[in-house]
């Protein structure tokens, strides 16, 4: 039933449905990308460097993997709201705000997973790079290459979180039709309207897209290894 609903939905060529799907992809991919760009080096760095207070930083990092999206959404909302410190940016209820909130949620998740992968094998890779004459930047590239399976998991986990998350994007985006309505907020709305079939159909579309995205990423991860 659900799968058929999903297909009907996709083939209906309904402009609104496509806009929602595209916005979902845009928001979740952009936030995953930006979060990953910051979180991968951070996780690697944490995995390699020793410094006083590292233990406590790690615990805080793990704790932030539990950040409730609703709270993140709320805090971001308060920052960018009219009266908030970043109110002048006027990004409330825009996709930019949704991306911002999701970055906050994904950053600790991706960092945490990469950190753990680096802890196991990173030192060895770094030393090899250095003995062969790699500079800092080249060592980082080498680490990303050698830890790619782990980094891949981190990105997939992050993307999975981004695309399925509803609490934060609902608050900062506002689920405004035609502007900030994404798949998850639509599902939540349909659910609250008792339109279960349609909600599940969109959920299946979301999973189909996740499947495609994962397959593409998986392809990259394989590389020439």
């Amino acid at each position, binding site marked *: 039933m659900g799968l058929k609903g999903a297909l009907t939905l996709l083939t209906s060529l309904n402009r609104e449905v496509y806009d929602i799907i595209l916005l979902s992809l845009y928001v979740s991919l952009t936030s995953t990308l930006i979060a990953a760009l910051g979180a991968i080096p951070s996780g690697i760095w944490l995995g390699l460097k020793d410094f006083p207070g590292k233990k406590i930083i790690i615990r805080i990092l793990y704790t932030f993997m539990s950040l409730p999206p609703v709270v993140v959404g709320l805090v971001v909302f308060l920052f960018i709201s009219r009266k908030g410190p970043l109110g002048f940016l006027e990004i409330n209820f825009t996709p930019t705000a949704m991306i911002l909130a999701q970055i906050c949620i994904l950053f600790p998740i991706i960092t945490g997973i990469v950190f753990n992968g680096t802890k196991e094998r990173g030192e*060895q*890779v770094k*030393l*090899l790079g*250095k*003995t*062969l*004459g*790699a500079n800092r930047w*080249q060592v980082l590239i*080498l680490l990303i*290459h*050698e830890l790619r399976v782990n980094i891949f998991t981190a990105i997939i986990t992050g993307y999975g979180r981004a695309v399925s998350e509803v609490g934060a994007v609902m608050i900062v985006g506002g689920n405004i039709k035609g502007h900030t309505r994404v798949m998850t907020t639509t599902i939540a709305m349909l659910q609250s309207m008792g339109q279960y079939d349609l909600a599940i159909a969109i959920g299946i579309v979301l999973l189909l897209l996740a499947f495609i995205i994962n397959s593409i990423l998986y392809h990259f991860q394989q590389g*020439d*290894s």
Partner: protein
Amino acid sequence: MNVQIRNLSKVYGDRKVLDIDTLNIAQGTIVGIIGPNGAGKSTLIKIMAGSESPTQGDIFFDGLPPNKVTTMDMTLVFQKPYLLSTRVFHDVAYPLRLRKMKKEIIQTKVQTILEEMDLWFLRNQKTGTLSGGEIQKVSLARALVFQPKLLFLDEPTANIDPTSIFVMEKMIKKINKENKTTVIIITHNIVQAKRLCQDIVFMDQGRIVEKGSRDTIINNPQETATKNFIKGELII
């Protein structure tokens, strides 16, 4: 490149695993480091190569502390080699790519060294599937390919078969001769040390017990510990 060590020590917990007053290695020589397991040989060589930091002490290369130029010109083949998770060719090409060499030059250099070491047939094999000896050969090839001025080798032929050992030693001698590369090699194979090295350092319990020319250390050691150690090997 020559190497000087002053007052070097490494402490883990309450165990001092390395404690060296002074050690000078002359430019262009091949120096062997021998000694029992746990003597601190790998620790010493890793510290020299900058892969581990000493608890205390200094190292000078051509009179200067380690710097960008010297580190680019030296390398270390680890006792447990780490190969990149790619194919043999790419692994050996890696140091050349780091040095931004042209593609054709990389191709030529890698092919040459793989052929010299009888590894060409493995060029497309994934490094994760190599045999123990093949791993050691590839990691030596990767170290030699960019012609370092200073080469640290930690038991590079431990898993190599007798025939291939000669190929490996030939390659080491060649880079030493043609490129004036200073070579510091750890080995448990006294016969190999005798074949390869001009000078030999005998270590035990983190200290240098005796150092000197190959002939002194192998045929005429002064310390009882050295004598016993050398004797062990030569009984057949």
